């Protein structure tokens, strides 16, 4: 086992991990604000992928435009999902478990809807040529798709940080996460902030979907399930609600998965099972994850 093999595995791991991280950030942000594990997040990502697919293939848009437009359109899909599925529950003060089950329902609904409308046969994502370039340092290969994922991921996370910690809307988002009622008393239109949160989270899902598709260019209505669930594991492992936790968790899960396949090829077929072991282990040993928020005491 030589050094360049290890280096290659690390690059591959970061490449996959950056994707998980990006999906996990969307998960954790929606959770951070309204305490809802949006299990449909992976499916929203799938919706984003298909939107980008049609924008690239039918409208022949240049990829940066397709990426941004698919993010915006998917953002509105997220807002719509919230208005139809989650908001009525919120308004009635439904228990958390009901929200959770609804999220699973939304997930099934989106998958089935796309199967009915577009069919279940996988389609080839029209990967723009630029992403197929590969760079070679010694014996280590790194693709443009990987580099783009890391750069665009960093940009997205920076923008998110700016919004959450430097803007008035971000302040309201952080306030809602601890105290819904009192945030209303500040004059905040809570429904609007939550819509904005869903918009951001879903736009982020679309961007991660695009990045996913340029690395794994076969898309179908069920493509969001496994990445979604693994990103969920990453978010929990990193500490759900924490953006940094989601990034670190995503990278670790991605690297681990590649390492299992690369260094322990006999176990390769158990990779998904091993990732879920991490989830079980995290929940048993440290349910708040690596960077999880401490529950602050009420005075």
């Amino acid at each position, binding site marked *: 086992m030589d050094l360049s093999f290890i280096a290659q595995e690390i690059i591959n791991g970061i490449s996959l991990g950056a994707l998980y991280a990006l999906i996990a950030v969307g998960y954790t942000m929606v959770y951070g604000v309204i305490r809802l594990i949006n299990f449909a997040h992976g499916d929203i990502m799938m919706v984003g992928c298909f939107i980008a697919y049609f924008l690239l293939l039918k409208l022949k848009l240049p990829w940066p435009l397709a990426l941004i437009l698919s993010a915006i359109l998917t953002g509105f899909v997220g807002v719509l999902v919230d208005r139809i599925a989650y908001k009525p529950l919120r308004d009635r003060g439904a228990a958390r478990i009901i929200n959770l089950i609804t999220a699973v329902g939304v997930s099934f609904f989106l998958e089935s809807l796309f199967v009915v409308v577009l069919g279940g046969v996988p389609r080839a994502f029209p990967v723009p040529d630029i992403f197929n370039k590969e760079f070679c340092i010694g014996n280590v290969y790194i693709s443009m798709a990987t580099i783009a994922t890391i750069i665009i991921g960093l940009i997205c996370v920076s923008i998110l940080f700016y919004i959450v910690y430097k803007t*008035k809307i971000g*302040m*309201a988002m*952080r*306030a809602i*996460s*601890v*105290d819904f*009622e*009192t*945030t*209303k*008393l*500040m*004059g*905040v*239109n*809570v429904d609007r902030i939550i819509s904005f949160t869903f918009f951001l989270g879903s736009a982020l899902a679309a961007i991660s979907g695009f990045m996913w598709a340029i690395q794994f260019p076969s898309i179908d209505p069920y493509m969001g399930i496994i990445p979604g669930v693994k990103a969920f594991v990453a978010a929990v492992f990193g500490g759900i609600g924490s953006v940094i936790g989601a990034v670190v968790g995503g990278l670790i899960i991605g690297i681990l998965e590649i390492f299992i396949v690369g260094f322990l090829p006999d176990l390769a077929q158990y990779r998904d099972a091993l990732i879920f072991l991490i989830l079980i282990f995290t929940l048993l040993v440290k349910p708040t994850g690596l960077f999880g*928020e401490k529950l*602050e*005491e*009420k*005075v």
Partner: protein
Amino acid sequence: MAEKEILLNVENLHVYYGVIHAVKGVSFKVPKGSIITIIGANGAGKTSTLKAIMNLVKQKKGKVIYNGEDISKKGTHEIVARGLTLVPEGRHVFPNLTVLENLLLGAYLRNDKEIKKDLEFVYYLFPRLKERKHQKAGTLSGGEQQMLAIGRALMSRPDCIMMDEPSLGLAPIIVKQIFDIILKLREEGKTILLVEQNAFQALKISDYAYVMETGKIVLEGKAKDLLNDERVKEAYLG
């Protein structure tokens, strides 16, 4: 009373939680520039009344008129925009936000240039908050949190401030400070609706008061008169 303009007028307010009838037809008036108190035991429906006025809980029946406008169907943020605010029971500062962020969130609806000036006014009222402005609100003491909750409410530039049990769980010296501040706010032209279990202190600074029991107003009168009322003395002044 009658000669003063009525700022807040609550008529026949009813609140239900499921089948529980928590507020059973409460009516009262808050004249501009006055301090009005509602006293009553735990569970009398005082907090529910305030929350219903802000539309944090649904009112089943009744009317809330603020500044001549029916606000009973308005969203909470729209009510705040009209100059009415509530300092909730138990402070409810945002523990994960800094003191400064808590105050700025109070000014959420404002975009004017005077936010800084109002911030200085709050710091003048509560110098402790200035010392701790970059500290997370969750690390403040109970008294400091109450100051922050009041300061935060002031940041929306309200005309009428409702305060739910501002003295609850505080040391006597802090309680005195809080009541001094309430008097100072009235001098600034604010109208105050106070809900208190600390009936003695509350009645001492109020103009007029209502006594609430099991969802109804059972007694009302000038605060001075209630302080000497035998029934009030026995039930609330100990």
